[in-house]
């Protein structure tokens, strides 16, 4: 589950807790985003039926898979770019 690769070099217990919190936060935001995006991609907005039809259900299943693969892919590319190193070493993460 450590798709952000946090807390690698001998972390203190406080760092461990923060890493877990960060991962939970990542999962939570990823989950909300997953729901929102797959709804937008697979469910038309006219609401003529209250049930999911076959096509919508299959679309959702594939969408979950593709969204999680996209998350994984984006994470890998960013790690390759060494962007996260700067972040983890407490340096200014390029934000300010």
């Amino acid at each position, binding site marked *: 589950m450590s798709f952000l690769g946090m807390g690698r070099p001998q972390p203190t217990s406080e760092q461990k807790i923060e890493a877990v919190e960060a991962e939970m936060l990542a999962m939570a935001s990823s989950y909300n985003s997953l729901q929102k995006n797959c709804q937008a991609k697979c469910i038309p907005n006219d609401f003529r039926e209250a049930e999911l039809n076959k096509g919508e259900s299959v679309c959702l299943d594939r969408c979950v898979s593709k969204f*999680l693969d996209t998350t994984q892919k984006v994470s890998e590319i960013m790690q390759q770019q060494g962007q996260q190193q700067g972040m983890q070493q407490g340096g200014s993460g390029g934000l300010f």
Partner: protein
Amino acid sequence: MQKRQVQEFMTAFGGLVDHCFVSCVDDFTSKALSTRETGCINRCVLKWMATQQRVSDRFQEHNQNLAQQQANQASR
């Protein structure tokens, strides 16, 4: 944790209201919801709940598969 769950529920509930309002309500010639709008909201909520459930099931499956893979790697 309890508080977090409430907040998450709040966010989801707010998102649902937004979603069904944007999708279903667009006639501002009267003050009350029309029968058509009410029906649309009803289907919108039920479909949203079904969607959340299905996506949630797939997400949990995915996490279990991942945990399984990690356990397999650790015991190798």
